[in-house]
């Protein structure tokens, strides 16, 4: 039995999930269908967006903020952060520019979320 708090709305239902039979995952404690979908995703393939920032040179900014272009598997968060920590950008940077491509072999890029002008 695994426990989750549903994040879909402020009710925050306490969900209990029985995944002893992977073909028939049972969810209880949910008030609406969104709770069930959430719990099954959290059990089978939890994903998270990762946001951080990297240093940028030749700009009036010190850092430029970045995000994964899509959510990545939750267990890859810290590996992804380690790759981001090694990265560095050079101005000019535009929102959407790829800063780290195919981060941790996920096929997902880390992209800039802020423009940095060259000075």
């Amino acid at each position, binding site marked *: 039995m695994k426990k*989750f*708090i*549903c*994040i879909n*709305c*402020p*009710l*925050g239902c306490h969900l209990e999930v029985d995944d002893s039979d992977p073909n028939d995952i049972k969810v209880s404690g949910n*008030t609406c269908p969104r709770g069930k979908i959430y719990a099954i995703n959290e059990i089978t393939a939890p994903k*998270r*967006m*990762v*946001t*951080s*920032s990297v*240093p940028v040179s030749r700009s*009036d*900014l*010190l*850092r430029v*903020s970045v*995000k994964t272009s899509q959510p990545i598997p*939750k267990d890859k*968060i810290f590996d992804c*952060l380690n790759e981001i920590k090694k990265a560095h950008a050079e101005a000019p940077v535009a*929102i959407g520019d790829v800063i780290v491509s195919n981060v941790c072999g996920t096929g997902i890029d880390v992209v800039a*979320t*802020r*423009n940095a002008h060259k000075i």
Partner: protein
Amino acid sequence: MRKCDIVVVGGGPAGLAAAVSAFEAGTKDIVILEREERLGGILNQCIHNGFGLHTFKEELTGPEYADRFEQLVYQRGIEYKLGSTVINVTADKTVTYVSEQEGLQKISAKAIILTCGCRERPRGGINIAGARAAGIFSAGTAQKLVNIDGLMPGKEVVILGSGDIGLIMARRMTFEGAKVKAVVELMPYSSGLNRNIVQCLNDFDIPLMFSHTVVDIKATNGRVSSVVIAQVDDKLQPIMSTAQEIACDTLLLSVGLLPENELAGYAGVELSPVTNGAVVDDQMMTSVEGIFECGNVLHVHDLVDYVSEESSHAGKCAANYVQNGMSATQYVPTCGTNGVRYVVPQKIRKDANVEKISLRMRVANAFKNVELAVLLDGEKIFSRKRPIVTPGEMETVVLGSELVARIKQGSKLEVTLLKGEEK
């Protein structure tokens, strides 16, 4: 003295949206004054995602959301001055600002829109006893240090306050290699989103201690070395027998935002003791004719989307005032009762010829299975069932033209909760 139709004080999301919408409404002689070196306000440091779902139907980070509105300002060639701090606003609508390039300057405006945002409640605001040591930061200051300056405020962290800013910073500090030992919350619940509790704390096994507070701060060589926390009773008084010490070098305070209303005060604008913002009518006009207020300076918003919405409305109304002058003669006051802590706007023009009016409100406690109702002189004219309402989430009721027409005959508008159970 320079003359200008509209001066916007503050270039955050509220100021940008107000300026763009005033421009669109035909008043183009506008200047935005911003004290920082860039537009975008607090969004520049909010690098996490979760902005704009409502407005753009996609989940943006703070800087991306700000950029969307900055582009609208650039495209229209709306004038803005950076590094320009407004130091005075008068009732006759003279704005005084200082900047490195221009020194002390005055502008005489036909209308002023105040969009100065909030500042964080400091340690003095909650009177925590103990050492006056290095290592105590407001959560927003820590956010700026990490995200803008690339500096880490500390290694072992305790956070007081579980609102969204505290939760976001718990994850951010963890991402940058710090150990967040606990998030301590005075109340028995968090005002933050469940999503943030799950994704910022539970994901990283950071303990969230409800009904606890910091009762002492200890220091060694001028730096925080530990904090003492204790459980509180139902009157929120610490129970000293439950005190425990947590070793840490950093304490982050996320204990509330205070609307920045000094300028409004100088102009003689009437302020609400509940919201700490101005008292406004349905055009977002304050008690001083021609001075408008919107965004976080008016009342604390949890979602920037609603800041943009409210501010677009204020900008349009300011342009209308510049073009057509004052229209209001009589007002219908609004109020919140039975668990509704406040309603903005606080009054509605009786002769308002508008298609709709948005009432924004917050409740005082969490209630389940409630009916949120609007009463006009006691008669129910609007109601909506809600499975839950919480103090952390602003509620909005939009009254359409039919209902607005009925308000004209009324004398008092009340927003209330019916049939709720306290959670």
